[in-house]
């Protein structure tokens, strides 16, 4: 049996606006085995992004524990958490969030600047990642010289360049046309199948969700289907 990559244990999350508590996630518990591809679905405002952020260690649960790749991340300090994110998580945003003043190559290289890799090693790694996403010929292009689909592929290259344990994607196809969306889904499937990446993807799109092995649904901050099998 595969190891558990993600373990969410009775997690609650609330936001506070002034003194008003806004409960967002309630009593969430689930596991994700290593190498799985999970789609997280649910209506707008149901807490999908919030949950993904907790898995990514960019936000902290109000209550409960999140364990990813063997680290109980709720217990880490801000700076160890930053380091941990770098080593374990590849994050893909809906709006790509590339740095507009950096080329495709430089955007992908960014996370590697936090490693001890030499310039030549970084170059090799970046070229490999851009090769996987099929953009080896666009390395010198700036984000505004790329299509939305290409930008998202650069963002995926940036997410995988550090060879993370888990890839988290928040509506990665939400802003793309049908064709580009299909390409991105193909790429994510490939990363899962060929490179054995554990993937958690938030999506609205049922066709995108089809590529996943497990679909989990959130509604008003609660998981609705028990075992999550599709």
């Amino acid at each position, binding site marked *: 049996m595969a190891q558990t990559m993600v373990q969410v244990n009775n997690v609650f999350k609330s936001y506070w606006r002034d003194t008003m508590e806004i409960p967002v996630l309630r009593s969430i518990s689930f596991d994700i085995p290593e190498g799985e591809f999970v789609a997280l679905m649910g209506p707008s405002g149901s807490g999908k992004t919030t949950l993904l*952020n907790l898995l*990514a260690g*960019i*936000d902290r649960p109000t209550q409960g524990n999140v364990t990813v790749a063997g680290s109980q991340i709720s217990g880490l300090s*801000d*700076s160890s958490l*930053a*380091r941990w*994110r*770098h*080593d374990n998580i590849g*994050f893909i*945003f809906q*709006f790509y*969030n590339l*740095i*507009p*003043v*950096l080329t495709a190559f*430089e955007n992908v*290289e*960014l*996370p590697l*600047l*936090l490693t001890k890799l030499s310039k030549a090693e970084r170059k090799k790694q970046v070229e490999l990642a851009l090769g996987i996403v099929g953009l080896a010929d666009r390395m010198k292009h700036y984000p505004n010289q790329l299509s939305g689909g290409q930008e998202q592929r650069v963002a995926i290259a*940036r997410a995988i360049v550090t060879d993370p344990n888990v890839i988290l994607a928040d509506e990665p196809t939400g802003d793309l046309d049908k064709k580009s969306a299909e390409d991105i889904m193909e790429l994510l499937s490939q990363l899962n199948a060929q490179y054995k990446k554990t993937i958690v993807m938030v999506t609205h799109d049922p066709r995108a969700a089809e590529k996943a092995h497990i679909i989990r649904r959130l509604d008003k901050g609660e998981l609705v289907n028990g075992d999550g099998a599709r």
Partner: protein
Amino acid sequence: MKFFKLTFRNAGRHKLRTALTVLGMAIAVMAFAVIRTAIEAWYSQASASSPNRLVANNNVSIIFTLPISYQSKIAAVPGVTSVAHAQWFGGVYVDPKNFFPKFAIEAEPYLAMYPEFSLPPDQKEAFLKERNAAIVGRKLADRFGWQVGDQVRITGDIFPGDWDFVIRGIYTGMKDNTDEGSWLFHYQYIDERMRQESPGRAGQVGWFMIQIDDPTKAAEISGTIDALFKNSAAETKTQTEEAFALSFIAMSGSIIVGMQIISVMVIAIILLVLANTMAMTARERTSEYAVLKTLGFSAGKIVALIFGESLFIAILGGALGIALTFPIVGLMKVAMSAFFSAFPLPPLTFILAGSSAILVGILAALFPASKAMRTSIVDGLRVID
């Protein structure tokens, strides 16, 4: 790529905004340096004086005179090696704009007391022989294109009437800050005319220059001299030449304070400008900073990025401003040589200008950096730009 490449790329993102901020910074730093140079010029005037020279003038004010008869009494004071009297002449050469100081002096002892005025012996001899001869500083001569032998008419104001002179010598300064902008001539020339036209003003001098043998006794000798004329109609006030020069600066003291305030305000204004630029910049990049944090960059790295950009703009502007200072001070030298003998550009001026630029760079980044540090990733990502 180095992470700090991002600093420069970011600075280049809004080229016009960055260029304007750099330019504003440059102008402010230049203004700061130029104002300080003007203040320095004032003080350098005073520091050109010799510790061996005292000045005795009317205790009421420098514009009141002293009887020439004091001279022998002062000369008799122990420690005094020589005394020469002098008088401010005023007067206009062609146009009041052509201002330069003119002194009626007791030539021989006066020049002996000023070894830093270097005058060729033949010119000195010619000057001493002739009643209406004058000598002028090198800079002054250059300003009006005067040569030895030129006839020059000055229209008097304090001493009314036309005064015709012949330039018999051009002196140069032995030191950098020696005054080369004065016009010196014989006291006898005005005194003779005063005897005839307004006898009440004859035999009056502006001040006495007093040479002493031991600068450490300056205070004691000054006290002795002033005591001599205590309770007389014209009491004296004796002080070192430097203190005398500084008392002129004290007269313009409020101007200097005003200038100092302006120089600080210029820096404060540019601080606001750069702080505004940096606040705008950091606000626009809120989501980018959140992305960098998501990728694993620490808050410290983000802070460094913001400080880097702010310092980059500040230092670029500061360097440009310092570079601009030289030609501007050059122009000032030409335009104001009548008033100031030297425009020193001491390292301190540049150290102050440079460090205020750096300080501005740091202060301008403080607020945006602390904000970027405090903004959580989640909040940063929710900002859509």
